């Protein structure tokens, strides 16, 4: 079974976030890493292999130079090989263009049974790319999966929301995004770290994928960031002192904020 996991290279969320003049994320000087939410997708793919299925796992990323760091972590965890789509004209691409490029890469990889993704990237956090890729590929999409069983021909997926859980079955090939509840991603072992160096990483350009460079990038983006403002500094909270009426005061506070 051939599984593609989508991995994104994101700026370290613990570092200060800044933007360049064209309102895109400033990646210079900030350490990048594998978007944490994608680790769940990699882990889920590895678990399919652990359960006895013969799997080939390919980590796919699109991003500027440096994005190899994201695939490196996936390879260290146990993915077999990686593809890095890099092209200057991709700068500033929106979700739609990203999905188009990644879908083209999945097609080029060929004979893919399952595409596994995280539920969102930890930087953009839009969660739309998996569904868009499925649309481009004409495949079924199951999003926000909390439990996954993969057979030779189908996936069975449980999705949880506050009120109810539903179980959905989709025929393979399919695109599945998983939540951070689905598993606990393994930490790479020494053997994994050392083996990763020897695993193949291919670099593809838009030309390799047959995607028109005019259809992607900042100029083609349908979704435009007009302005970026910093979140205001947190103001000091109010302290409720309990003088026997703490409960009432808390309730009044919450009511005043229209929280209850």
């Amino acid at each position, binding site marked *: 079974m051939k599984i593609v996991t989508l991995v994104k290279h994101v700026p370290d969320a613990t570092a200060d976030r800044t933007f360049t003049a064209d309102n895109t994320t400033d990646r210079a000087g900030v350490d990048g890493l594998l978007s944490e939410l994608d680790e769940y997708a990699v882990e889920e793919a590895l678990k399919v292999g652990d359960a006895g299925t013969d799997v080939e796992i390919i980590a796919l990323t699109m991003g500027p130079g440096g994005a190899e760091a994201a695939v490196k972590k996936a390879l*260290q965890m146990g993915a077999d090989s990686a593809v890095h789509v890099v092209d200057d004209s991709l700068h500033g691409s929106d979700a739609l263009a990203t999905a188009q490029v990644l879908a083209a890469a999945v097609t080029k990889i060929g004979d893919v049974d399952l595409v596994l993704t995280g539920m969102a990237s930890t930087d953009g956090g839009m969660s739309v790319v998996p569904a868009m890729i499925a649309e481009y590929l004409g495949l079924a999409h199951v999003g926000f999966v909390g439990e996954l069983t993969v057979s030779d021909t189908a996936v069975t997926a449980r999705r949880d929301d506050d009120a109810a859980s539903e179980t959905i079955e989709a025929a393979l090939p399919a695109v599945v995004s998983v939540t951070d509840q689905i598993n606990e991603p393994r*930490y*790479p*072992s*020494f*053997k994994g*770290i*050392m083996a990763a*160096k020897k695993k193949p990483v291919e670099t593809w350009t838009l030309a390799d994928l047959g995607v028109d460079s005019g259809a992607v990038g900042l100029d083609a983006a349908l979704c435009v960031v007009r302005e970026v403002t910093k979140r205001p500094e947190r103001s000091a909270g109010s302290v409720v002192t309990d003088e026997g009426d703490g409960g009432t005061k808390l309730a009044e506070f919450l009511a005043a904020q229209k929280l209850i």
Partner: protein
Amino acid sequence: MTTPLELLSVEHLLSEEERDLRDAVAHFVDDRVRPSVADWYEDGLSSSAVRELALEAGKLGLLGMHLTGYGCAGTNAVSYGLACMELEAGDSGVRSLVSVQGSLAMFAIWKFGSEEQKQQWLPGMAAGELIGCFGLTEPDFGSNPAGMRTCARRDGDDWVLDGTKMWITNGSVADVAVVWARCADDGAVRGFLVPAGTPGFTAPKIGKKLSLRASVTSELVLEGVRLPSSAVLPEVSSLRGPLSCLNEARFGIVFGALGAARDCLAAALSYVQTREVFDKPLASFQLTQAKLADMALELQKGYLLALHLGRLKDDGTLTPQQVSLGKLNNVREALAIARECRTILGANGITLEYPVLRHANNLESVLTYEGTSEVHQLVIGQALTGQSAFS
């Protein structure tokens, strides 16, 4: 602001793989050691906690990481050193667990054992499912192991061991003890693999320790312990056996001790920013800065020394005298740094809320085991003068 080790821009002296392996250990320590270490220290590390920790360490690949085959990761020596440094930034006791398992017990079997012995023990030890200990020191013979009284006598095809070993890390937890004994018939020193539970063999825990409390230390008592001939390590019959194992572990300590020092210095650096004395941050006083500068300097010198020795080891040219130099300097300086940091933290420094006194107390053991400072001075003195001053 910069960190003590960034001052000299030493990061590029490491390969990407060395950095990745180091970071994996740092993550392990943050995850599995730091949250519990104060409790382990206060209560004494329990045997079940040792087992759990060994399994976690085995999963990562820490145990016997620099050995090849038999489930070992097969990293280079520098990576092993860096791992020790990260572990000891957590606690010297945790580093000791890994040192004893990998560099003493596993190394002895890997280097001097038969193929059957390696197959029987090493994969389980690498995975952390089996724990080993290393018994050389005796109640009356520490720095001078040649005087050992533990004796092995032939009885038909069997061996019978009698004697006592002292201060043995992991002794009470171990599934197998590597015990060094003098053989009655030819006077040679040989290593024996003594499985836990062998009749006549007990390993009582040593209590009331004020140092290395997050580590199990034990006595090994051997009373007429009968072992088959397959229990002896076939490939060595002199003190060279145990001493070459110690040289491996000692190399790890050259890096390890710096980890404890770095952790102390990090605690002190953060403390001086927030602690105000005489209406100003402690960091703004010249006396404080002089202390910090001197400590950062020693830390970096020690790190460069350790890295240099690591590169020599990977080239296969490292000598025991050079390891002595590294151990003498780095443990001595680490202990000085830990104590100095303790002064900076004032009364807070004596608690387990902060790591400084815990590290300082641990380093007292590290100063003594794997060859005391004095013994290393004598090794270096002999190298310089050609004269042995041991006796």
